[in-house]
């Protein structure tokens, strides 16, 4: 009995000191997985500390389990229940605002995922940023067409509603299918080469979704029919959002063979460029109005309208 209590005593002492450190939240626990974990763990445990502090004396083991449960994601709800999806919307207004601002201003040292997402990926940002972008593209495309045709008596303004569905398909498939492919690719490379940094599927969706946020002001600028302004805004938007993606995914592939790493990064950037220029070319076209025949029938009094052929050319110059 005495040996048992001695054993219990030593065991408890070891555990209580560790959980005491963990439960307080003052000390940082360093895990081997990735360097970003040390910064977020005390924050999570600080949240759980007021709950578990009174239990700490009673059962240090349970304290450890509880912090583990609270810091990680609750995997208890099955995927067909509503609660399963509710944990993807566990964000507050200021968090979403910070994430959007962080995606607008990339910085070489800061990893978007580690700094802003911090193991709390949300689906709110990607979904509503994509929805906003779809409608902004459709509306601004309409306005820019109207401005190009302005003063043209032959032009009858029609709101082209079909463009909304096309824009929605393009943007949503880019924002959800490309992360799926990229995640699969990274998982496959991870099985071959041990990478230090790995992202979950939702974190990749988050990065792609928030990186599209910079396009919204750029698309609004595309209303102006000036080609120089359009080119300037598209280049700036591409640089900002592309650098977010590059800075996020470079740590995940740099441990790989250099050829594979370069190939993956090039593919990411190329798809991004394709999306930007494709949207600009399809929705914001430049006009070349050709007058094929102008009727001089006004002198003769006959009423026939001058025919004009309008070529909507999707030129990029």
């Amino acid at each position, binding site marked *: 009995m005495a040996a048992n209590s001695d054993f219990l005593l030593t065991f408890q002492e070891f555990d209580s000191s560790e959980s005491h450190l963990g439960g307080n939240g003052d000390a940082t626990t360093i895990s081997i997985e990735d360097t970003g974990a040390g910064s977020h763990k005390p924050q999570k445990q600080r949240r759980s500390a007021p709950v578990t502090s009174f239990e700490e004396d009673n059962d240090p083991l349970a304290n450890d389990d509880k912090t583990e449960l609270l810091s990680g994601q609750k995997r208890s709800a099955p995927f067909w229940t*509503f609660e399963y*999806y*509710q944990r*993807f*919307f566990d*964000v*507050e*207004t*200021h968090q*979403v605002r910070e994430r959007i601002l962080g995606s607008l201003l990339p910085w070489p040292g800061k990893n978007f995922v580690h700094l802003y997402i911090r193991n709390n990926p949300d689906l*709110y940002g990607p979904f*509503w940023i994509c*929805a*906003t972008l779809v*409608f902004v593209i459709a*509306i601004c495309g*309409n306005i820019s067409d109207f401005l190009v045709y302005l003063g043209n008596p032959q032009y*009858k*303004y*029609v*709101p*082209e*509603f*079909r463009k909304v569905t096309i824009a929605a398909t393009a943007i949503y498939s880019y924002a959800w299918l490309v992360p799926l492919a990229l995640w699969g690719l990274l998982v496959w490379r991870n099985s071959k080469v041990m990478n230090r940094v790995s992202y979950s599927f939702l974190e990749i969706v988050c990065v792609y979704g928030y990186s599209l946020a910079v396009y919204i002001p750029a698309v609004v600028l595309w209303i102006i029919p000036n080609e120089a302004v359009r080119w300037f805004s598209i280049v700036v938007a591409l640089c900002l959002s592309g650098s977010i993606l590059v800075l996020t995914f470079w740590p995940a592939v740099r441990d790989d063979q250099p050829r594979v790493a370069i190939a993956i990064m090039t593919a990411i950037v190329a798809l991004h460029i394709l999306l930007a220029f494709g949207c600009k070319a399809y929705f914001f076209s430049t006009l070349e109005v050709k007058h094929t025949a102008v009727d001089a029938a006004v002198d003769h009094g006959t009423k026939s309208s001058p025919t004009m052929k309008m070529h909507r050319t999707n030129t990029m110059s």
Partner: protein
Amino acid sequence: MVEVEETSKFMFAGLSDVSISGDIAVEGEINVPVGTPSQDKKYSTLDEPVKDTILRDLKAVGKKFVHVMYPKKSSALLRDWDLWGPLLLCVTLALMLQGGSVDSKEDRGPQFAEVFVIIWFGSVIITLNSKLLGGTISFFQSLCVLGYCIMPLTVAMVVCRLVLLGGSWGFSFIVRLIVVTASFSWSTFASTAFLADCQPPNRKALVVYPVFLFYFVIGWMILTFSPSA
């Protein structure tokens, strides 16, 4: 008989503080209160004339319209939700927005089905969004509020169609712009007044923004409506 009663009383002596008055009669008639006719009529509306049924629903719908016109923080809209009003407004709006030229299939305005789908699908998405963010409102209550708050935009559509009779551009465009902007902000404000209370305070903006986007898109469709020549 008396001995049985005595023993039973002895066995259940502990229950003496429970107030059972005397002997419980197990013989005799069991009196069931006969339902009064007025109570019956309140719950069974099967026998009333059809006019009463329709008028009652119409009155409820009309009362909710008044609530939307003067949005105060009342819970009447939420308590007795119904989807008649939203259906009426949606069909009216979709019928009026239907447009575009018939000669070219490519460049045309939204068709009836597109407007219908946008309104209902958009409402469902916004409701799901607010529920996922932890809102305490029920699914159909939210649909009801969003549907009823389309009413200012429907009124704006009627006004726009009347204004369009006098020409498409210039002054009529300014008037239409002002009318649509005013009604769109009225819709957003009205629905926020009803919906915002059901959200945790640090997520209010996250719930209000999709509602703003929804009414903005509908307002845009109204503003850019051009009748086929």
